[in-house]
């Protein structure tokens, strides 16, 4: 390739992975995040701890980042490893105790990404101090729970497991509707249907036609275009 080749044609091949501004996420999660990755120096909030939190940190860890998990003794490291998390580069602090803000600040000094479930409600002052630490350290704080200052908020609106019958079968995959919104550039609400996890333990995009036939579509987000398309498709296939 000539040295003077203009860059733009290469940009789509490296969406968000370019070490400077963002930490990488799994390819199927890129569309949920405003910059196609976890913006360094930002705080993200996931409504509740679950596979979504682990999926968000997995790719960064696989890429060489150290990951701290604080305040979540029940974090399923095995599932996270299946999503790509490198257990060798993971620090667990299951019980950060009453001094958790200092513990998290210390972890942020060493780890690029810290997954935190605050043991107690954080006061505005504590939040601002931690946000400043995150900005200074160019790391990412992913909070499982409520965090009013978060740039991006994600939540699983609906989920449904497949593979389990009435006394037979086994859990195979889970179809989940993930919604992301936030402030500033993330203000637009984005909705994606994902297999979280897919049958191979990873994450994949769910095709509406693959959804379980008895999927409950009367969810609060039913007026979203994607969901409408899904029910329309289902109606077509049923007819």
């Amino acid at each position: 390739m000539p040295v003077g080749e203009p860059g733009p044609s290469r940009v789509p091949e490296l969406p968000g992975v370019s070490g400077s501004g963002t930490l990488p996420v799994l390819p199927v999660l890129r569309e949920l995040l405003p910059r196609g990755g976890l913006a360094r120096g930002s705080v993200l909030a996931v409504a509740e701890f679950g596979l979504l939190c682990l999926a968000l940190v997995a790719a960064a860890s696989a890429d060489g980042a150290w990951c701290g998990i604080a305040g979540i003794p029940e974090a399923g490291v095995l599932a996270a490893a299946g999503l790509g998390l490198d257990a060798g580069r993971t620090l667990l602090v299951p019980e950060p105790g009453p001094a958790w803000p200092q513990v998290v600040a210390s972890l942020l000094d060493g780890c690029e990404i810290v997954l935190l479930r605050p043991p107690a409600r954080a006061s505005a002052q504590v939040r601002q101090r931690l946000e400043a630490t995150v900005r200074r350290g160019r790391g990412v704080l992913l909070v499982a729970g409520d965090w009013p200052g978060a740039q991006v908020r994600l939540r699983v609106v609906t989920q449904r497991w497949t593979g389990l019958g009435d006394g037979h079968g086994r859990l195979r995959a889970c179809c989940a509707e993930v919604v992301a919104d936030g402030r500033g550039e993330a203000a637009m609400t984005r909705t994606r249907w994902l297999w979280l996890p897919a049958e191979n333990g990873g994450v994949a995009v769910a095709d509406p036609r693959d959804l379980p036939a008895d999927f409950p579509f009367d969810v609060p987000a039913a007026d979203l275009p994607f969901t409408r398309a899904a029910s329309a498709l289902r109606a077509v296939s049923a007819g």
Partner: protein
Amino acid sequence: MVVSCPDLHGPDPDPVSARLLEQVIAVVIAFCPKVEVVEPGICAFGARGPARYFGGEMALAARIIAAVADLGVESRAGVADGLFAALLAARAASPAAAAPARKESVGPRVPSYVRCAPPTPQGALADSSNAIMVVPPGGTAQFLAAQPVSVLADQDLAGLLKRLGLGALGDFAALPARDVASRFGDAGECAHRLARGLDPRPLAARPPPADLSVAREFGPPEARAEPVVFAAKALAEQLHAGLAARGLTCVRVQIRATWADGRESSRLWRHDGLLSAAGVADRVRWQLDGCRPPPGDADAEQHPQGGVAALRLAPDLLVRAAGQQLALWGETVVSDRVARAAMRVQAMLGHEAVLRPVLGGGRDFAGQVTPVPFGEKKEPRLAADQPWPGRVIGPAPGVVYPAAREAEVTDDAGEIVTVSGRCAVSAAPARLAVPGEPPRRVTGWAGPWPLAERWWDPAAARRRARFQLATDDGRAWLAVVQDGRWLIEAGYW
């Protein structure tokens, strides 16, 4: 000479006995300054000098035992040429034998070459004299020859020797040293030297070329034990690194703490190249615990010495490092930045608070991840490369409770669902109630999958029946029935 307090002997003394231990050591130090603490409850020192001063080994030992008895602690003493023989002599000396009725029965058991104390007329000394055994100079090999091989610390080796027909240490000592070394390796050679009445390892001939001791000053003096113990761990690592760089290891390590008011506490602890940095830090903790006032005191926080001003670890008796080869290939390289962050959290919360997960095998999701404290060797509890029949297949759950949560699973009639010994389910599960959360309707279930584990070990034996349950909120659960109770082991969401 070895002084042993059987009541205080244990791998991990509690604060009360640690304090008592410290007082006992202080008493012994009043007789002889250079005392080595072999392990909690056992201390040793060179007896030749003090014995001459106090008028013989018997008299010295009797005085020490009487002084220790004033603290309300029973003790025994053994004297021999080497530490190993002296330990055995102290063990053989039985304070219970002081009762006159049992004296005769003990008499024939003591071999002729072991000099037992003649009863002395003075009251206190007479009581203690049976708690002393003195092996005369040069008689150590003979004394050891009659001991069973089971006294060796290496029980595997002892069992092997017994099966080979070598019941007594004398038989073992009679083997040529070269053959022992080629057959039993470094550990066997060490035991052979012990059996012959020699020191376990030959002393390194040359003196250490440089000062290998490490020290840390605390300014302002540190009143709490935790930061000092934490600093001790880093110091011990530094000490070990310095020794390892020269191919040496130390038999003993001297821990010296200086308080703000200038007082010192100095102890020698057995090391043998086996203690980890955390092990050395534990000994620092015990030593500091011993010097503190009891927790019940009103001024427990404000203890008289005013905090630790300096801590010094010095290796004692350097020998060549012969074994303990560490892994050639390291683990994931931990950068300084991460190590600093992790150790700062450890300093705040304790060593066990920062963990690194190690993936292994097992039938439980919780058991397949072994959390290892940061800085320790990473090894899974259960091997990963085994088939583990009976494990749950399919995607791993995102939520794995470290301790299973209580739950109630009921059928349509509201009765608890039970599983019979033949794995028959009483009714289809219809509702799942987890304490603290609204009840859920079960929309799909599979099971029971029976699992009987470790029936050969009554303490660890478990019989469980597993279920996967899907509930109306879209979540799925891994539930087990154990001893008629429902428990939630993991959650899929």
